[in-house]
């Protein structure tokens, strides 16, 4: 590359194209933060990526392109097919998977650069990596392998957890899986990886040792990624997905430091920042610190206590049939739907919309109250309801909908639990105490569609279910909603 740097193309044109690309990325991300400009922002960012790739190909000049083209073709095909075919309900796991592939790419690039410059074509044979590549590139390579590896395997575990089709030792993977001594193991893995990384970067000139060291750090990072995500439960997934998103950016930045490429550093930093902001938003929405999410093992204390715990101790709960619930809805003038993960599981978003249309045709006003951490990723409910063509003007954020519950006749809670639990406000010792929740109990009547009285992720009782003005309709969300639709249609006819 040193020869190319002296030429106009490699030394001036390509870096300027990279700068243009970085600027376009900034405009793209800025666009992505507003509903109106988001699609344009995404296109802009895609254009910036294309520009960056073309500039790189120009920089590479005339070389053997077969491998590069094959890689681009295979990756492009797989990515396109998956992206166009995936169901909207499978979006969280898809994002996790794409995220992981980005992290994996960072690991491979870092190892590849080390291998090329230290083993295959050493410019200074017999020198350590810190001398041959410069200490900054050597350190960045270690960090790139570490962060990228954690992103890769962590995202794969997140993917499996979100799919929730795998069981380990009879336990669903979406549950927190707490291995004994995991904090110690993680500490050993981090320190060990850094020690091995420091050693092969600074202390040895042996080719075999450098190669083996890079592989050992990569393996440690992969195990660490698995260990870090296994203890996280399904409801904490929005935090973890955002954090892994941030990591994938930082891994790209680390790769940029290895290659002395500012475009990678800038783009990676932008992604790192956006991931951290989302992580922060998700943590605030759960009233928990990031450390608590990552290491807390939330809800586990309850499990260790006598089986079932408080969740069984329900007093009188009013259980209605769909027919009876439909009669309550019939007379309502204002209805707020509160969706939760159960809506996604039952794929009930279209039926909800159908029910809302029916109610609206009877002159009822329908809104949706969305809790920021409802579902399994940031904005999960919004994507689902958008797929069912629910106008986004009807989707209300927590702060905006909370004052409205007092004037609401009926709140329909579909597959949500902890985000509507009054315990967050009136039980100081509760695990969710202080978490901002949707104050649905202030409405005239609440109808909760749920399979059973089983506790939500927090593992605690929901006193909403015992309220005098609450009605439980037990069953699968989609089925119950379909019955409600049928009943309302019948009533109209």
């Amino acid at each position: 590359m040193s020869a190319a740097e002296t030429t106009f193309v490699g030394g001036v044109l390509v870096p300027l194209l990279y700068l243009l690309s970085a600027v376009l990325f900034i405009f793209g991300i800025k666009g992505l933060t507003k509903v109106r400009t988001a699609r344009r922002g995404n296109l802009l960012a895609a254009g910036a990526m294309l520009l960056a790739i073309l500039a790189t190909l120009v920089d590479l000049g005339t070389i053997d392109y077969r491998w590069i083209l094959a890689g681009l073709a295979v990756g492009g095909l797989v990515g396109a097919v998956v992206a166009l075919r995936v169901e909207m309900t499978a979006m969280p796991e898809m994002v996790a998977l794409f995220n992981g592939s980005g992290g994996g790419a960072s690991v491979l690039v870092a190892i590849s650069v080390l291998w090329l410059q230290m083993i295959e074509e050493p410019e200074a044979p017999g020198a350590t990596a810190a001398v041959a590549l410069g200490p900054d590139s050597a350190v960045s390579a270690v960090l790139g392998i570490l962060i990228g590896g954690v992103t890769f395997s962590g995202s794969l575990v997140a993917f499996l957890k979100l799919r929730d089709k795998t069981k380990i030792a009879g336990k669903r993977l979406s549950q927190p899986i707490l291995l004994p001594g995991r904090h110690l193991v993680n500490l050993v893995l981090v320190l060990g990886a850094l020690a091995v990384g420091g050693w092969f970067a600074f202390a040895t000139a042996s080719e075999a040792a450098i190669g083996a060291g890079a592989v050992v750090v990569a393996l440690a990072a992969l195990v660490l990624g698995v260990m870090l995500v296994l203890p996280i439960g399904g409801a904490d997934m929005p935090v973890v997905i955002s954090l892994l998103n941030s990591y994938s950016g930082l891994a790209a930045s680390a790769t940029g430091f290895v290659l002395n490429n500012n475009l990678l550093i800038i783009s990676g930093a932008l992604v790192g920042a956006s991931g951290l902001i989302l992580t922060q938003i998700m943590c605030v929405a759960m009233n928990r610190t990031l450390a608590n999410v990552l290491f807390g093992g939330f809800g586990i204390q309850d499990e260790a206590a006598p089986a079932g715990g408080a969740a069984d101790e329900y007093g009188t709960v009013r259980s209605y049939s769909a027919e009876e619930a439909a009669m309550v809805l019939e007379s309502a003038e204002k209805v707020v739907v509160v969706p939760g993960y159960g809506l996604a599981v039952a794929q009930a978003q279209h039926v909800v919309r159908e029910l809302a249309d029916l109610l609206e045709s009877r002159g009822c006003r329908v809104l949706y109250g969305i809790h920021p951490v409802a579902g399994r990723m940031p904005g999960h409910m919004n994507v689902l309801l958008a797929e069912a063509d629910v106008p986004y003007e009807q989707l209300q954020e927590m702060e905006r909908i909370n004052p409205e519950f007092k004037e609401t006749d009926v709140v329909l809670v579909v597959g949500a639990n902890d985000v509507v639990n009054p315990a967050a406000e009136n039980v100081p010792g509760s695990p969710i105490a202080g978490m901002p929740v949707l104050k649905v109990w202030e409405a005239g009547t609440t109808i909760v569609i749920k399979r059973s009285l089983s506790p939500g992720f927090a593992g605690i009782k929901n006193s909403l279910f015992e309220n005098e003005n609450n009605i439980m309709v037990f069953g699968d969300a989609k089925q119950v909603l379909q019955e409600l639709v049928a009943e309302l249609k019948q009533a109209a006819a």
Partner: protein
Amino acid sequence: MMGPLLISVYVFVLAMFVGFEIITKVPPTIHTPLMSGANAISGITIVGALYAAQTGTVTVSNVLGTAAIVLATINVVGGFLVTDRMLGMFGRKTKKTKP
């Protein structure tokens, strides 16, 4: 004078600040697309992968680089397409509201 490492660190820190500044007040509606779009941008590693795979002969670095191209391209192409699909759904609402 600043060495190349220091310049890179400057660039990194300033870019983080740019990120924090432009991503203020994200409406929850857009959380998923923002995340998935940003995720696609993290596929910028593809530039590194292209440099890594450049040798024509089959070597360890070349094979690793090519594998990196595959992974990064999945990230980039899949990420941008899926984001566009999602945002397409948000957009169509402004046209057809209530029947």
